[in-house]
């Protein structure tokens, strides 16, 4: 891990309306590597990606991408930086009024003056990579969940970005698409020399393709290391997560009053 990292997060704190979501995050995403952020639902993974993309401003600390502090940039600077980032949204976020083809072509048409036949070739290439070249005429409403996610992936990489953020790329994929998409993330990173951040719950699949893993719990980084470190780790948190055990330091419940207090008759009204 040499050279200046592409993304550097230092002492980052973030709260939504005074409720802390991320505390004291330090994270480094080196160039040309795939980094995974793992952690249970609601721990702040999507929020982290939004902070890197400059859609949210940290309460304190800073996020640097390619040497620039993201939240200090003006609108123009931020937009220039975002042209070199791709983001796969957790729920796809395809433009519902455009066909699959137009969705993938969107950035090419907005940001370049390429002639239409070249755009067509580029779009077909990206769709081919996610196995959906044949679906280019369909509208988003005609796609299954997993197909929509793959189209969103093709759209995220349309401009060959230097930083690609994947929010749950594996959710809703069958085992075959899953390993193909996993491979794709790996090869894209190599072919483009890009860096990738993969937010995922899918420990087994992602350990095959990532270089480094951060485990987040309740807004803090509780463990980190290379894929090898993680597999061998016997830290209770990591062990529980990797092997999917119900008992351990990770609470399954969103913070709540004691269960008995809420369900016992006669006291139920307090909840």
């Amino acid at each position, binding site marked *: 891990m040499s050279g200046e990292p592409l993304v550097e997060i230092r002492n980052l704190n973030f709260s939504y309306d005074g409720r802390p979501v991320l505390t004291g995050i330090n994270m480094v995403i080196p160039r040309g590597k795939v980094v995974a952020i793992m952690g249970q639902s609601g721990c702040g993974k999507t929020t982290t990606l939004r902070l890197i993309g400059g859609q949210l401003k940290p309460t304190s600390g800073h996020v640097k991408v390619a040497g620039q502090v993201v939240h200090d940039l003006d609108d123009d600077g931020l937009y220039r930086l975002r042209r070199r980032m791709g983001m796969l949204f957790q729920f796809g976020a395809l433009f519902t009024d455009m066909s699959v083809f137009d969705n993938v072509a969107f950035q090419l048409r907005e*940001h370049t003056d390429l002639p239409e036949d070249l755009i067509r070739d580029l779009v077909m290439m990206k769709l081919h990579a996610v196995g959906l070249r044949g679906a280019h005429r369909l509208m988003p409403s005609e796609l299954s969940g997993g197909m929509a996610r793959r189209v969103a992936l093709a759209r995220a990489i349309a401009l060959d970005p230097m930083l690609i953020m994947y929010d749950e790329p594996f959710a809703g994929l069958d085992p075959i698409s899953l390993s193909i998409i996993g491979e794709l993330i790996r090869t894209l990173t190599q072919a483009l020399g890009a860096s990738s951040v993969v937010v995922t719950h899918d420990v087994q699949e992602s350990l095959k393709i990532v270089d480094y893993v951060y485990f987040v719990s309740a807004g803090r980084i509780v463990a980190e290391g290379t894929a090898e470190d993680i597999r061998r780790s016997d830290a209770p948190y990591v062990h529980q997560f990797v092997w999917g055990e119900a008992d351990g330091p990770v609470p399954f419940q969103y913070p709540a009053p004691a269960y008995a207090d809420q369900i016992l008759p006669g006291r139920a009204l307090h909840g």
Partner: protein
Amino acid sequence: MDNVITRALTNLGHRVTSRIRRLGFASRFFAMTLVYSGTALKRFNLTIREIYFTGVLSLIIILVSGLFVGMVLGLQGYDTLQRYGSSEALGILVALSLVRELGPVVAALLFASRAGSAITAEIGLMKATEQLSAMEMMAVNPIARVVAPRFWAGIISMPLLAALFSAMGIFGGYLVGVQLIGVDEGSFWSQMQASVDFREDIVNGVIKSFVFGVVVTWIAVFEGYDSEPTAEGVSGATTRTVVTSSLAILAADFVLTAFMFRGV
């Protein structure tokens, strides 16, 4: 007792300040829409597409309503005028009522409920499904790409729709007055031509419908952009668009009329 009153007052205060704050947001949003209108005007096909969705799709309801309103005007007008033995003035009555008042106002009310609500719902849903966020992440400003084309499309469509409404209404008045009741055709048209003033009536009517177009589309795009990103949020915003813009149209109509026809 004291407690109840203070609470009521605090509540009222909160409501007033939040309304004022929202008005502030809306004004800022309006200014931003104008600032980022470059794309919508340069790449005019984006706006044309929206003109199709807002304007052309409102066409049927506008034409049909215009026809009926004109026919009712023909009946009512004839009934009143013939008492004074001046039924051949029916043409003037129908044309002036439509061009000055009913055309712009009723067309704008219909436009608000047909196109305004659709704009709000569309933008609100794009927000709720993170399409606007995604656009921002792709370094494309959603105000420039999504809001401004819809805004300009509304402003361009509104006067055209109002004009079509009036034309259709005059035709309806003609059908009922001349064809059905038998008012003299020559005097129906010639009196109308002689008494409708271009500056005084037509231009003022166009100004009205232009203002209504700005008001309705502004409210519609703002409510959509500002909506809570949930199903209830979007449906609430859609209702607010129709209610707020209808009230705004009627209020603006009073103010404009007071200024325009002061001397008449």
